[in-house]
């Protein structure tokens, strides 16, 4: 069984972003970029499935600018066998990303496609569900455990009330939650080896998908700043302030 993993280039999770003064967008000039943390978990899960003998090949795919090849190299260093780069400088909305991933899945015929549950830039949490809909497959979102058995995959999902387990007919789509696994670090020899693995570059045009958007961002603003920073000296003072100043306890 082949496993397809989608990885996205996003800002590093430690970066605190700033909004551009003209409110057109956030300012990403010279900001450190990295693989979306949930995608790292997706790659790790795919590689573990290969190590367990469940998966025969792991193919990583990204949609994004030329620089997104850095994230594909990371995926290759972590154990993916080869990679596909759908190159575009346009901003790609979730539905378009899902359409492009669907085309890749049509070609590759993976048994499982694993994505992150959300990317930490747009926080959309949509692409996996959309891909599953377009491909007519079952979806195991927010996965914290994945088990492949015969022609099914059992996925334990982190839901608001606790955990839910579903069985999906293969092929299926999975999106990763934080506790699915702890991703490994790439070792130097693997990083060197990854440089020799192949990356197949395509364009959305080649694939017959228009990178159009039905959403327009009218403005991007900073949220209201909190006026924090006041300290109290004792528990007595804290209780007094909560009762008499903030009036949030009786």
């Amino acid at each position, binding site marked *: 069984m082949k496993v397809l993993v989608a990885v996205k280039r996003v800002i590093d999770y430690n970066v605190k972003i700033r909004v551009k003064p003209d409110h057109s967008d956030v300012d990403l000039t010279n900001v450190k970029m990295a693989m979306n943390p949930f995608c790292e978990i997706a790659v790790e899960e795919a590689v573990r499935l290969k190590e367990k003998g469940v998966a025969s090949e792991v193919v990583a795919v990204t949609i994004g600018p030329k620089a997104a090849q850095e994230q594909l190299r990371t995926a290759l260093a972590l154990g993916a066998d080869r990679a596909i780069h759908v190159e575009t400088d346009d901003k790609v909305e979730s539905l378009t990303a899902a359409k492009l991933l669907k085309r890749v899945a049509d070609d590759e015929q993976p048994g499982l496609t694993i994505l992150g549950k959300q990317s930490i830039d747009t926080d959309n949490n*949509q692409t996996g569900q959309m891909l599953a809909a377009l491909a007519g497959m*079952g979806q195991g979102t927010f996965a914290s455990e994945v088990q492949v058995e015969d022609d099914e995959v059992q996925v334990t999902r982190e839901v608001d009330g606790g955990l839910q387990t579903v069985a999906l007919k293969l092929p299926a789509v999975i999106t990763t939650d934080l506790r699915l696994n702890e991703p490994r670090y790439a070792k130097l020899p693997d990083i060197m080896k990854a440089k020799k693995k192949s990356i197949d570059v395509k364009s959305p045009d080649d694939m017959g998908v228009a990178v159009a958007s039905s959403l327009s961002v009218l403005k991007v603003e900073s949220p209201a700043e909190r006026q924090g920073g006041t300290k109290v000296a004792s*528990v007595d003072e804290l209780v007094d302030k*909560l009762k008499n100043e903030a009036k949030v306890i009786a």
Partner: protein
Amino acid sequence: MSILVIAEHHNGQLADSTAHVVAAAQAIGGDIDILVAGDNAAGAAEAAAKLSGVAKVRTADDGVYAYQLAEPMAELIAGLAGDYSHVLAAASTHGKNVLPRVAALKDVAALSEVIGVESPDTFQRPIYAGNAIATVQSNDALKVLTVRTTAFDAVDATGSAGVEAISATVENTLSRFIGEELASSDRPELGSARVVVSGGRGMGNGENFTLLDGIADKLGAAIGASRAAVDAGFVPNDMQVGQTGKIVAPELYIAVGISGAIQHLAGMKDAKIIVAINKDDEAPIFQVADYGLVGDLFEVLPELESKL
């Protein structure tokens, strides 16, 4: 405009979130219908009919909708969507599981975690862990939205809408429910509690979370946690507050032994009052706290409990 709100319910009981989503629908304006799909969900439909501002409740009661799995739910909703200009659900794990699937079936974009309605086609939503707020306009004929419930006050329950059954049903050959492990607690729900007390890695272990119990009892609070506390196995995943956990906006949020990473702040910085208890006087949590107390939580918590 006509809006379909997808009800969330568990064991025949309507979730609180639905009344908040109806409020968001009212902000858009137009006729509001609620869909209650489930297996033996008559109780939830009855409660939904009482929400004020609702025109009618449509019910789809069939075994295939038990546990409201994404595959049959999305097919059902996509089939009904032609009657509506908007489809709304709460930005819960349930809403986020189902609505993007509906949007893709209808070939339209989805908007996640909407926190403001500017007009029927223009909405606000947080991006980058809430460090920026984007105003986004949708040009699709059908708008598919998940709504952050803390951003909209619940409507009251003084209505009396009619209830109408949908006869058509769908098939599901893609997925099957296996089981669930739901946390049971006598405490209020995290998302709607007036007071939330959360513990972080500083709590040290799971047993020490009992130090928060007495305070939570006295304040009628829900108990939350940071990701580090959940990852370390101190408490279960459904208690995680943050960018990738639950979003809370209580009147009072007490963060104990939590450093204040941006991913945690994303889930709680809309609280009215934030209290931080941390032994490191430079912990970033103090920058957003209205009242910060520098001290060892093992001394502070028992004293606080006794003085409340």
